[in-house]
């Protein structure tokens, strides 16, 4: 038993109260601790990634209780990848928040940030659905605090809405778990896989209800139609660095669907066969449409980006809904890409919006470094919309390539291609209004009175570095697309090797 597996949960969990109680009066101390902790988290996640590369499924038994009785953490390629993704994103977002001073505009940013990381890492590592619920609550309660960080009317109202929808979602999660426990008598994912395989199709009605309930809960997190409506309001009104961190939160929902609905309610299980995929696919198509229309219709920059996130979740879910190893490889590649693309967009938008003080899509007096911001924004927008040369293009191509089922091909291809076109138009409009039309205005402003407000300061290298790092990761992901796809192929092969997972966790084979 390798104790490093629980380190991504323990480290932030220990650090957060320490920052919250001991360092709350000294922001520089809290910053130092938070950055150090996140760097350590990144180092640990690299170690776990290397550990998982061998293809073995590592099981961590909490309190050394045997699997169906105690709670287990499971480290395989997928969970190691997701933890790595989280720590990398967290480091980028944290540096941005510190450099731009967002963390000092309210209290307890760093403590909440660490609790958020604890919840996300735990959700990726756990092998028990009730434990998954608990980690969901940890990450949610931290996200409530981060969402309303630094306050303000619009933010608090949006925050209240976000809390209410997620509390309703949590209740639904508990209903699903109750139903599942009543029908199978277990909540361990591996044990569920064994028990569900024994349930004959005639008695599967309640299990199917539980499957659908769980999927709705995860769909709320993943912002899938018809429960996507909380996302634009939340992301648009959250502090921008928090919105960038939330890019991984939608992926928690996607990961949960991928994990639970391949392993426990897998394609080979008669009782729940095809339940998830048949509903996910149309929902994903509609989600892309909503994202595309939202991007076209948005009148402010932050909602525009939020809607593009909705669209990207739709594309991701199309690939996931196929529930085949090939499609999952494509989904994972797109997942990694869209996480960093969304984060880069939010961080760059933050730099622009803070300097303009409003985020309406209208021509404004030009700010310093207009050309640099324009270049960064367009690079991130290209990534998000899925145009070459960045990894979004490869990701979407990958998804299109695996959707070859004649029944699904026309819908999937039309939705993804049309959605991309709308997104490109929306971003091009936003960018040209914000950056190109704005260059015309300063003369008029200068001709006016001399006491006009001073220009906001130019962005320091530290403020630009995080967004550039996120963009650099997109470039890296497209340059190393071959090795990355190879790794992801092995990841999804391991995910679909249900017997291997069950054997590692329970110590028995799937039939036993």
């Amino acid at each position, binding site marked *: 038993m390798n104790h490093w597996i629980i380190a991504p949960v323990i480290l932030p969990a220990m650090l957060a109260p320490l920052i919250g109680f001991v360092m709350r009066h000294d922001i520089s101390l809290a910053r130092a601790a938070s950055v150090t902790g996140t760097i350590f988290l990144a180092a640990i996640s690299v170690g776990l990634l290397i550990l998982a590369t061998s293809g073995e499924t590592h099981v961590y038994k909490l309190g050394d209780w045997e699997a169906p009785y105690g709670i287990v953490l499971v480290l395989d390629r997928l969970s190691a990848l997701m933890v790595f993704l989280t720590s990398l994103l967290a480091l980028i977002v944290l540096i941005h928040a510190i450099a731009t001073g967002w963390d000092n505009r309210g209290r307890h940013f760093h403590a909440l940030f660490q609790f958020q990381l604890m919840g996300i890492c735990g959700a990726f590592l756990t092998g028990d659905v*009730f434990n998954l619920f*608990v980690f969901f*609550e940890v990450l949610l*309660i931290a996200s*409530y605090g981060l969402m*309303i960080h630094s*306050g*303000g*009317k*619009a933010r*608090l*109202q*949006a*925050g*209240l*809405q976000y*809390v*209410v929808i997620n*509390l*309703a979602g*949590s*209740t639904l999660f*508990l*209903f699903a*778990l*109750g*139903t599942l*426990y*009543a029908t199978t008598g277990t909540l361990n994912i591996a044990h569920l896989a064994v028990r569900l395989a024994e349930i004959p199709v005639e008695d599967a009605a309640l299990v199917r209800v539980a499957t659908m309930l769980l999927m709705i809960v995860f769909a709320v997190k993943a912002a899938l139609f018809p429960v996507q409506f909380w996302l634009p*309001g939340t992301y648009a009104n959250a502090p921008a660095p928090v919105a960038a961190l939330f890019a991984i939160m939608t992926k928690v929902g996607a990961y949960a669907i991928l994990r639970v609905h391949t392993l426990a309610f897998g394609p080979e299980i008669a009782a729940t066969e095809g339940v998830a995929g048949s509903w996910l696919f149309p929902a994903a198509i509609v989600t892309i449409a909503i994202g595309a229309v939202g991007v076209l219709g948005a*009148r*402010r920059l932050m909602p525009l980006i939020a809607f593009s996130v909705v669209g990207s979740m739709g594309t991701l879910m199309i690939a996931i809904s196929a529930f085949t190893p090939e499609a999952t490889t494509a989904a994972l590649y797109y997942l990694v890409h869209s996480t960093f693309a969304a984060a880069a967009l939010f961080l760059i938008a933050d730099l622009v919006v803070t300097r303009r003080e*409003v*985020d*309406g899509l*209208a021509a404004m007096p030009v700010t310093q470094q207009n050309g640099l911001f324009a270049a960064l924004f367009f690079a991130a927008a290209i990534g998000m919309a899925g145009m070459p040369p960045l990894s979004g293009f490869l990701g979407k191509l990958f998804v299109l390539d695996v959707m070859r089922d004649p029944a699904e091909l026309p819908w999937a291809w039309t939705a993804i291609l049309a959605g991309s076109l709308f997104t490109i138009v929306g971003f091009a409009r936003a960018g040209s209004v914000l950056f190109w039309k704005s260059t015309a205005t300063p003369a008029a402003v200068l001709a006016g009175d001399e006491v006009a407000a001073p220009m906001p300061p130019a962005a320091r290298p530290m403020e630009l570095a995080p967004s550039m790092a996120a963009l650099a990761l997109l470039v890296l992901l497209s340059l190393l697309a071959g090795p990355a796809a190879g790794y992801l192929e092995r990841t999804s092969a391991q995910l679909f090797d249900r017997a291997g997972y069950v054997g590692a966790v329970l110590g028995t084979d799937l039939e036993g």
Partner: protein
Amino acid sequence: MELVVASSVAALTAGGVYLILRMRAFAVIVGLALLSYAVNVFIFASGRLVVNEPPILDKYGDGIYTDPLPQALVLTAIVISFGMTAVLVMIALGSYLESGDDRIDLDGPRTDAEDGAQ
């Protein structure tokens, strides 16, 4: 017994859903509290309803017993929902004091002019 438990879960859920749909902060908070009561009773019932039996197996493992696991699950669920309700009350209070309005939906009071100016 089953009828009483099932109908109480149904009544609590129906009341909770109705109150959440009122879209006003106080009603929504009470509605979510009702929903969490409903789900707690529901989880209790998921271990099968047994009265006056110990939560352990007897020596031979053939006697009637109550399933102890749902009780542990309910305890966790109660603690979490209690904490969440407290957070929700604080955020709702903050939102009400800040905006002078206890609506949950964002679309109502905000006009297009406000939207554009933000």
